[in-house]
């Protein structure tokens, strides 16, 4: 017990302090704006019209509050105490959402208030002098209050509002948060929900529960939300279990959001990616061996027969991509896999030629977007001996999703620092170059903790990087393991996919009785999917549900729901897979 808890303590400590290289989320004025950044002594953040170094943040606990001090040395961030903050923070939500406040509990009212700015005797010029002389934002706000003729006549609530308004303008509060699935989800949902597929934090939490994500799970994901779901699962598993983010052969996923998290090496190393056909093949070879192929071919699973009779071009494995062929030949793949790979590559070449069609069927039956940049295709087939999957150099040209890619020069700006909302984080080029060297891939965040724990961190970095990188390509052994056991959970977040086609391919990859959950922005495709799963007896415990969330302002005599409530949460279809081989004859047949 005591061992357990001491380990817990140290782990918690690691996660609570900002260290050099930490990914951080800056929450400005309580949700007004959010900015992601990486804490380097040399990086700068732009706050309104000033730039400040992030150096003062390093060594502070997450949750620390800063404001900008503009003394003669130039603007810089200074930590402010919690106590100052508390007065205003608790009743801040109304302001955040721009809701006009009712004032039902006061004998004072605003009938005599004239909002013509004459009440303030402090001029703009005087304020700028104060600032030049190094007055803190808080000082300025205090001066403004002292010089306001109308302040004392305001209702308590209006006073509070006045203070907050001035504070936002003259002393913006910056809370340093640790980017977690929840905080990232909330930041994106508030500012740019489309980038996480309108996934609200309650929905995310629901997905993780319904999919039974917990230690030692083997979780399969179809994540077309930039890797956000994959990362959230990674965070929840904390390195216990395995995670496989899969994709159609022709659609390389962007898992860029993994880079926003401060994962431990252990967590990073549990996150893999693998193309769907490989998983299907590994699984179906098992079920064939067990003599179940009759059942699975009967419409439950996509088998090899299925895979081979597709829209693939007829041409043999020739001319098109000789380079890949040689590389593939040297790899661990077996014969049929090689065929598939090359065929897939040919298909893609064909696709990139026919950019006009917006949707076609790929070799494994998914609709595939063809608007992707051609370079993406070339990336996806740079299979070398190690089967290194280059997901991190993928340019997601289709969407404006920030990829946070770290290896492509022209993406460096977004790569190091992703901004949600209006704030930008400026980074100087030379720092960035240094950074790129350090973090050759997504795994860099895993190495952060290593810096923290290991003394000879720098040298360790490079040697361990590869085996630790989150989202790296799963080895053949790993794929075979999943094939043998089946995954213990499935989460699908693919707003542009047809859920039924996803289920048909992916449910057979699960071990029987495994929970699955599909998130979709539209209800109808899920309803149809549910109907068919039920009809074909592919799953039980099916539930189609719509999550609903409402936040409340709770204040003495002023409790009410927040007025801006999101109505676009999407829908979840959940269920449990069945043991296909034992829904078996004769009963199975009789029922159909």
């Amino acid at each position: 017990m005591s061992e357990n808890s001491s380990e817990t303590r140290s782990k918690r400590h690691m996660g609570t302090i900002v260290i050099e290289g930490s990914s951080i989320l800056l929450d400005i004025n309580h949700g007004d704006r959010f900015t992601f950044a990486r804490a380097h002594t040399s990086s700068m953040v732009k706050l309104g019209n000033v730039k400040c170094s992030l150096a003062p943040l390093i060594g502070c606990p997450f949750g620390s509050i800063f404001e900008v001090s503009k003394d003669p040395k130039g603007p810089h961030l200074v930590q402010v105490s919690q106590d100052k903050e508390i007065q205003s923070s608790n009743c801040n939500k109304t302001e955040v959402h721009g809701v006009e406040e009712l004032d039902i509990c006061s004998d004072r009212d605003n009938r005599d208030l004239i909002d013509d700015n004459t009440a303030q005797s402090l001029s703009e010029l005087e304020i700028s002098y104060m600032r030049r002389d190094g007055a803190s934002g808080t000082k300025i706000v205090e001066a403004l209050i002292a010089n306001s003729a109308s302040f004392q006549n305001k209702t308590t609530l209006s006073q509070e509002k006045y203070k907050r308004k001035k504070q936002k303008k003259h002393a913006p509060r910056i809370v340093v948060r640790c980017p977690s699935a929840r905080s990232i989800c909330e930041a994106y949902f508030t500012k740019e929900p489309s980038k996480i597929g309108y996934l609200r934090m309650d929905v995310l939490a629901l997905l993780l529960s319904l999919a039974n994500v917990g230690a030692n799970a083997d979780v399969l994901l179809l994540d077309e939300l930039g890797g956000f779901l994959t990362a959230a699962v990674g965070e929840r598993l904390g390195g216990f279990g395995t995670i496989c983010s899969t994709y159609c052969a022709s659609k390389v996923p962007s898992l860029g959001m993994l880079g926003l998290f401060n994962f431990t090496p252990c967590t990073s190393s549990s996150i893999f990616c693998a193309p769907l056909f490989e998983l299907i093949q590994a699984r179906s070879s098992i079920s064939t061996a067990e003599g179940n192929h009759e059942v699975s071919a009967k419409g439950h699973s996509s088998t090899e027969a299925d895979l081979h009779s597709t829209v693939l071009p007829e041409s043999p494995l020739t001319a098109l991509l000789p380079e890949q062929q040689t590389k593939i030949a040297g790899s661990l793949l077996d014969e049929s896999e090689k065929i598939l790979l090359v065929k897939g590559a040919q298909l893609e070449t064909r696709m990139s030629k026919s950019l006009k069609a917006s949707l076609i069927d790929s070799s494994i039956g998914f609709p595939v977007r063809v608007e992707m940049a051609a370079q993406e295709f070339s990336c996806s087939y740079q299979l070398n001996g190690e089967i290194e999957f280059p997901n991190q150099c993928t340019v997601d040209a289709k969407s404006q999703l920030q990829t946070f890619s770290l290896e492509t020069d022209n993406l460096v700006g977004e790569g190091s620092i992703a901004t949600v909302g209006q704030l930008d984080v400026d980074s100087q080029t030379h720092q960035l170059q240094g950074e790129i060297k350090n973090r050759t891939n997504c795994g860099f965040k895993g190495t952060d903790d290593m810096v923290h724990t290991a003394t000879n961190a720098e040298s360790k970095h490079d040697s361990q990087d590869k085996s630790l990188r989150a989202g790296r390509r799963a080895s053949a052994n790993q794929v075979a393991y999943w094939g043998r056991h089946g995954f213990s959970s499935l989460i699908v977040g693919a707003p542009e996919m047809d859920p039924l086609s996803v289920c048909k391919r992916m449910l057979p990859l699960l071990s029987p009785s495994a929970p699955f959950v599909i998130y979709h922005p539209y209800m109808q495709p899920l309803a149809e999917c549910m109907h068919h799963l039920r009809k074909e007896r592919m799953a039980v415990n099916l539930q189609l549900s719509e999550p609903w969330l409402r936040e409340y302002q709770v204040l003495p005599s002023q409790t009410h729901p927040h007025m801006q409530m999101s109505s676009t949460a999407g829908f979840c279809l959940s269920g449990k897979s069945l043991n296909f081989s034992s829904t078996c004859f004769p009963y199975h047949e009789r029922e159909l």
Partner: protein
Amino acid sequence: MLGVPRDQRTESAECLIREGDVVIVYERHDRMKQATVCKGKEFQNRFGVFPYCDWIGKPFGSRVVGKKGIGFVYLLKPTPELWTLVLSHRTQILYVADISFVVGFLEIGPGKVVLESGTGSGSLTTSLARSIAPLGHVYSFDFHELRAEAAREDFKRNGLGSLVTVAVRDIQGQGFPEDLVGRADAVFLDLPQPWLVIPHLGRYLEGNVPLCSFSPCIEQVQRTCEALTSNHFTDIRTFEVLLRSYDVRTQTFGSLSMTGVKEEIAAENLSQVRKLSGQKRGRDGLKQTEPLVMQGHVLTTEEVTNGKECIPALSSSSDIGLSKNPENTGVERNSSERIVARPYPETRGHTGFLTFARQGSNLN
């Protein structure tokens, strides 16, 4: 074991049912029970009799048929979500919407230490245990001795015994035990008067540790928030979470004709349909069928699957869009069949409010 799948697996086999396992017996979507596998005994329900020895060695997710081929059920592996649906209610419990939000918002993960009170029926505790496994721990307190004991037994039966400690204690009166000071990563309260505990929580929550309190009534929330504010908590936020479930089925809809149909025929057919479908329901009393909705007819999945669709025959081919029996008319009856969804009328509404807060990190 709930939620910790891999330990059980051997290299070669799927997850097979063994003597002593807890199994979720799935009868229908709204009907599940728990059972503990015990050789020599039988599971009985209104569909049939199922000897447990038939289950042993089968993978979870299998369908088993009752004695003499009568009745069938599916055997599911327990998850905290399923457990919440089958546990014996010794108190009001939390459901998946609130539970998932609590776990997500408190950011509970492997290795964390969570303090909880009261334990109640253990619905939330089971999910907390899944999330902190395999290294963390849940310390759960209830002042009701029998409830605590029953919960303890449930956790043990589900293989969570080593992850959860249930103790009998009046948390509102005594607060959490002294030896847990500084060890918690999250605190959860489901107590009638949480504001009595809040003033004493400070030392348990040092280091930006989050707190959540669940209360059904807004007056409780009000007092809780006042206590939080006066005890210098920050990030105080209150939420209500709901989950609306949808019923999915197929339905045919009539379409209004613009051409060529005499109104009399239409009227005639309509009355015929009503009559026949009335008979049909009488005959099929047990079956889940839906009444006629205007001219349409609702098909349950069972009906579709069994292929014994029971839309009455219509000899005349009117195009007011009534469902037609393929045998009699040769017209594709599915032509106007749609898959539709609507919320269940009995969806559970408000269960309570969740209030979160943190003790601010102090400057040193």
